[in-house]
Structures are given as structure tokens and as C-alpha cells.
């Protein structure tokens, strides 16, 4: 069943109006995200990992939005937001010093921990290894990292789609309560917008004027379901007026458009004007999970069209066209990022499985309740 009705995206676009520093970092991070996906897709194809939810096609949106945030703005991610995670976690200038002129490092970078170690932890996380953020207890992006000292406030997903939108609204509420001007960026697929939690959270955001930006990554399919079976409005941003919040739909192939829309949304959030629903239209470049047969259901011509729309290729073409990078630079970034990911993955694959004791680690944070839990017979606690 084809995703009908939506018009085709406009012709090739150019990252024209964006700060060169931002463009350099964006290019690096998008390539890093893509390199990661390529590596994991390859492993999924040969059965070395169980499932892989590819973010290929989402990079321009995830990186373009996350790059508009500052230290201790919060992000809440779902399953195709690797780009936003990398953008938030990594001091790119330290990770690939050769690629960045001295002035590219930001104040936030100064707070950030050594990037290599975070990348290694992330790779171990995805493999369910001992060295991951959850030490094997939960999968890939199912964790969070709230480290105000590092300027990082990241809340990962649970599998239940839509459930994180209220949580993101709560992160925004805390900012309101603290009287600061921080913003919160939440991601969601177009499929998950059908969940009641989407509605409840955006309604709250409207009523309380929460500093929240919800980015809808509209890749036109949810698992096998095309958007015409998912919703009947013209654009999902048409829902914004119903919540009294700002709404915009941008072309997720157009880095400048994404970044500019996000920058506007962040400004609204910081100035107390409230929330934004930002829909980014993406090409469906991969199936739901690698090898699950869902991509084959999309008509071949439609698939080809999507594959031609690769936002990263367009971004690089635009860099070239505008003279913002030459072919050598693009090649270098491609190779450096590939090597960084290869390394991280290899290292992670050499790390150990989690200790078995992790399975029965506490369900309660230390305190009275945790102590009482541990007092029960081990048949129950499993302890």
C-alpha cells in the first residue's frame, strides 16, 4: 500500500544560511550517524545482531534540530534518533580534531566528557554488553543520561511509542518551575502521533506554555502502515492550532530549513511563548527493522524515489555547490567517521557480556524501600 497524497519534496536544497561552524559539525555528525547505521545494517544482514532500526534518512532532521540546542537543554529520543544522541553527547572537535579548526569548539564542548569513551559506552549499550549505559539490562536507545555537569539531559525511550511525549513535557515543566530558559526537544515518528499520549502531552504543553519542541519524523510509514492509514489531516502540523501551539512542517531533506525552524522553535521556548510541533518530512529509505520484510511492501517506484532523496547526499551536494566544502573534505569526513565507528564497534565487540548478577540488580534506588525489598525471601526478589 503506497503512502499516497503527500506531494513530492522540492528539488535539491542547499545549506546556505547556516553558520559554517554549524555546517561543519552537522556534516561530521550526520556522517557519523550514517557510518554507524551502515555498520549495524551490515551486521544485521549477516545475523550478527538481532534487529536494527536504521536511522538512514533521518540524519538531517535529528542533527539539524539537536544542533540548535545548548548545554542542559533536554532531549528525549526514540528509535531513529542516533543523530540527535551523537549531537548531544559528543564534543566533535575532540573526537576528530583534524577536521575542525580551533574556533569550532563550543562552551558546551568544554563541559562534555571525552567523546571516545561516550561513543564506546554507546556501542557497548547497543550490543547489550557490560560496558553499556545499562550494562546489558536494556536495549540500544532504551536508557537515559542525565548529567547536568556535562550539560547533558537525555531521556531515552521505552518501546511503547508515544509514552515519552508526556515525559518530555515533564522535563519542560521542570524548566518552567525552575524559572530557567531551557528548552526540551522530543522526537516521535508519525505513527506514534496516533497515540493518546501525544494528545495529552501537547494539550498540557499548550495550556502551560511549556518550552517543548516536538519533532515528528514523518517517514511516511509506521512499520508497514502508510500515512494515509495513519492520519487524515493534510499535514501533522495542522494539529498544532488544536493545542494552541506553533506548528510547522518542513522538508527533512533541507538542513537549513530544519535548523532554521528549530532555531525559531527554541527561541519561542526560551522566551516563554510555548511549544512547537515541528513536522519533518523524510524519505523512507529503509524498512521498519532490517530484514523484516516491511520495505518490500512499498511499491518499488516509491522506494526508488525515497532512496534518491537521501538527505545526506543532498547536504553534501549543496556543500559542494556552495563551495562550503570540497570533494576532498567530504571524502575525509566520510572516511574519518567510518573509521571512528569501526573502531568503536570493534572495541565494543571485544568487551565482555554483562555479569549475571545484573539480571537481579535492584529495582529500587537505595533507601527504605530498597532495603525492605531486599529483606524479602530470595525466591521472590530473585536476589
Amino acid at each position, binding site marked *: 500500500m503506497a503512502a499516497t497524497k503527500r506531494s513530492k519534496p522540492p528539488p535539491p536544497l542547499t545549506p546556505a544560511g547556516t553558520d559554517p561552524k554549524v555546517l561543519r559539525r552537522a556534516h561530521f555528525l550526520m556522517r557519523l550517524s550514517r557510518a554507524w547505521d551502515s555498520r549495524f545494517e551490515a551486521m544485521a544482514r549477516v545475523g550478527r545482531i538481532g534487529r536494527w532500526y536504521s536511522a538512514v534518512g533521518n540524519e538531517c532532521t535529528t542533527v539539524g534540530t539537536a544542533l540548535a540546542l545548548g548545554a542542559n537543554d533536554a532531549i528525549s529520543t526514540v528509535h531513529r534518533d542516533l543523530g540527535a544522541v551523537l549531537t548531544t553527547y559528543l564534543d566533535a572537535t575532540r573526537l576528530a580534531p583534524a577536521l575542525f579548526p580551533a574556533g569550532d569548539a563550543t562552551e558546551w564542548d568544554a563541559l562534555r566528557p571525552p567523546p571516545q569513551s561516550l561513543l564506546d559506552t554507546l556501542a557497548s549499550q547497543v550490543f547489550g554488553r557490560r560496558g553499556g549505559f545499562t550494562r546489558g*539490562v536494556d536495549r540500544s536507545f532504551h536508557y537515559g*543520561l542525565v548529567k547536568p555537569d556535562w550539560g547533558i539531559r537525555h531521556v531515552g525511550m521505552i518501546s511503547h511509542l508515544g509514552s515519552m511525549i*508526556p515525559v518530555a513535557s515533564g522535563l*519542560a515543566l*521542570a524548566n518552567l518551575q525552575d524559572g530557567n530558559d531551557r528548552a526540551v526537544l522530543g522526537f516521535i515518528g508519525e505513527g506514534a502521533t496516533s497515540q493518546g*499520549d501525544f494528545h495529552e502531552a501537547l494539550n498540557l504543553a499548550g495550556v502551560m506554555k511549556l518550552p517543548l519542541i516536538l519533532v515528528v519524523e514523518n517517514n511516511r510509514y509506521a512499520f508497514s502502515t502508510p500515512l494515509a492509514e495513519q492520519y487524515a489531516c493534510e499535514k501533522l502540523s495542522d494539529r498544532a492550532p488544536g493545542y494552541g501551539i506553533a506548528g510547522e512542517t518542513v522538508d527533512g531533506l533541507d538542513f537549513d530549513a530544519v535548523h532554521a525552524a528549530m532555531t525559531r522553535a527554541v527561541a519561542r521556548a526560551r522566551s516563554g511563548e510555548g511549544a512547537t510541533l515541528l513536522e519533518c518530512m523524510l524519505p523512507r529509505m529503509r524498512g521498519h527493522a532490517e530484514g523484516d520484510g516491511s520495505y518490500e511492501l512499498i511499491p518499488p517506484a516509491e522506494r526508488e524515489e525515497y532512496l534518491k532523496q537521501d538527505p545526506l547526499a543532498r547536504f553534501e551536494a549543496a556543500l559542494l555547490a556552495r563551495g562550503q566544502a570540497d570533494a576532498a573534505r567530504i571524502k575525509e569526513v566520510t572516511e574519518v567517521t567510518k573509521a571512528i565507528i569501526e573502531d568503536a564497534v570493534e572495541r565494543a565487540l571485544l568487551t565482555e557480556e554483562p555479569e549475571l548478577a545484573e539480571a537481579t540488580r535492584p529495582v529500587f534506588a537505595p533507601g527504605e524501600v530498597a532495603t525492605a*525489598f531486599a*529483606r524479602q525471601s530470595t525466591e521472590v526478589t530473585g536476589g
Partner: protein
Amino acid sequence: MAETTYIDAIRRALGEEMERDANVFLMGQDIAAFGGAFRASKGLFEKYGRLRVINTPLMESGAIGAALGAALVGKRPVLEMQFADFVSCGFNQIVNNVAKTYYRWEAPVPMVIRLPFGGGAGAGPFHSQSPEAWFAHTPGLCVVAPSTPRDALGMLKAAVRDPNPVIYLEHRFLYRREKEDLGEGDLLTPLGRAHVVREGKQVTVLSWSWTLHESLAAAEELAKEGVSVEVVDLRTLSPLDEETIFTSVRKTGKVLIVHEATITAGFGAELAARVADQCFEHLDGPVRRVAYADRPSPYNKKLEQSLLPGRERITAALRKLARY
């Protein structure tokens, strides 16, 4: 000193904890200017303003999720469900998001969800339920159900301070019926500790909340008949204070479990199971339960009364068990 009702004890706990810690805040429907359906937050909106006493739109799931988000960055939300029955609308946020966060990535989730629950008011199938078993079956949640103003106060304060999600069951029928002189001071009741309310020798009753009081009345009745009944107020259902429970059952050799929730797969089943396993050699009679029949709560008061596990049914069951 003035006597404090159960609902006033709750209000006092909220006020004291908000005063103590600026991160504590309240969320719920109609809790601001109106003070909540049962007036548990009366006066607090005027004192702490709209960012610490937050009137939410008419939603449960979104409110629970928002509270979780705030808790993850250092706040201590106390959420009121207008009636416990409505918590089912936010069930997923509790069992999959709130409950699992600490195990998954070791982020503490200090939050309290207050559930005004229970029947006895002729309020029908949707304003009378006792949902504790659902939450006790969910790893990662602490489930408490105080039966006295003293514990209502002390456990709510302890719940607010604990770094974990606490499902706090407050019985609507007790709100204005239970009163005590509480005195001053920072009164805390430890979480995870049961309380032997009445000592006895021949039968142990395990109960909590409203049925605890009915059980005490029944024990009184049995005392007149020469039967000595020990009554244990569980207070915290999960995690369970096995020590207190097993000590009592091993002493008396007989146990009656009493709760208001429907019987099948109610929390009483878990108590029965643990006792039947861990106290087997001490049991001098079958493990018995008195609870609500497997029915929704009927609206008509007489119908409802006929199903509630009140003192008559408990007394009868105790008599039978004592004679066993």
C-alpha cells in the same frame, strides 16, 4: 489536642513536605483553587502557587508521564488521581515507564501517586475499586495503604522522601471517619514495615486499610467468645514485611487474609501463597481469605453492602477458622 482526621493527615503531610523541600510539588485535577475532590490540597495553592500546585487538564496518562519527566530532573511530584479508578487510564505510564526506569538505567524516580480508593459509599462500579494487586504485581513500585491518620501522615511523608515511585492508597471511607491526636513534629512511618495492631494467640488476621478496622472489630467480637485473634496491619504491601507476617502466623498457626479488592488474584492471594510456602509446617488450618466477590461494585448501597467484606463476614470466617 485537636484530633486529626485521615484526610487532614494527608493534607498535613503534603504541606509539611512542600515546606521542607522546594522540589516537592503537586499535580492533579481540580487540586488548585478547589483543593481537590476531597480537599486534600486545600489551601496549598494559595500558599505555593500555580507551579507547585498544578491543576492539570482532564487526563491521567499525560499527567503521570509529565510527573516522571519532572522527577527525572530532580523534582518530587505528588500526583493525585481524582479517584483510584481512573488510574487505569494512566496504567501504561506507571507499569512500563515509571516502574521500570530505575532497573533499566538506574535513574531514581521519586514520585508519589495518590489513589483515593475503596467502596462503602454507594458510588458504583467506577468509584469504588481497589487496584493494589495490579501494582503489587509490577516490579519497581512500592505500594502502601495506611489505615490510620498516624500512618497516613507518616507514610505519605516517607513516600515523598523515598527515591522511588510509591503508589499510595488512601481509603475514601476513612477520610473523615478515622481521627487521632497526632501531636506535633516530623512524624514518619517507615515504609516496608507491617504493624501488629492487636496481639493474639489463636488466629492471625492479615489486612490493611478499611478492612483492617473491620478486622479489629471482628477480633473484638471473637475475644468476647474467648478466641484470641492477632491482627496485623500490613501498611506496605510491596515490598512485603515477611518477617512480621511469618512470625505471627507461625505463632498462631492459622491465618485469615482480609481485603476489599475482588478475591481472584487479589493481593491476598500473594499473602496466602507466601504463608502456604514459608509457614507450611506451622499451619493448623487452611489459609482463608475474606474479600469481595468477583464482581464490579454495584451502585445500590444495599447491594454494595452485601458484597463488602465487613465485620460480619470476617467474624464468621474467624469463628470457623478458630474451630477448625
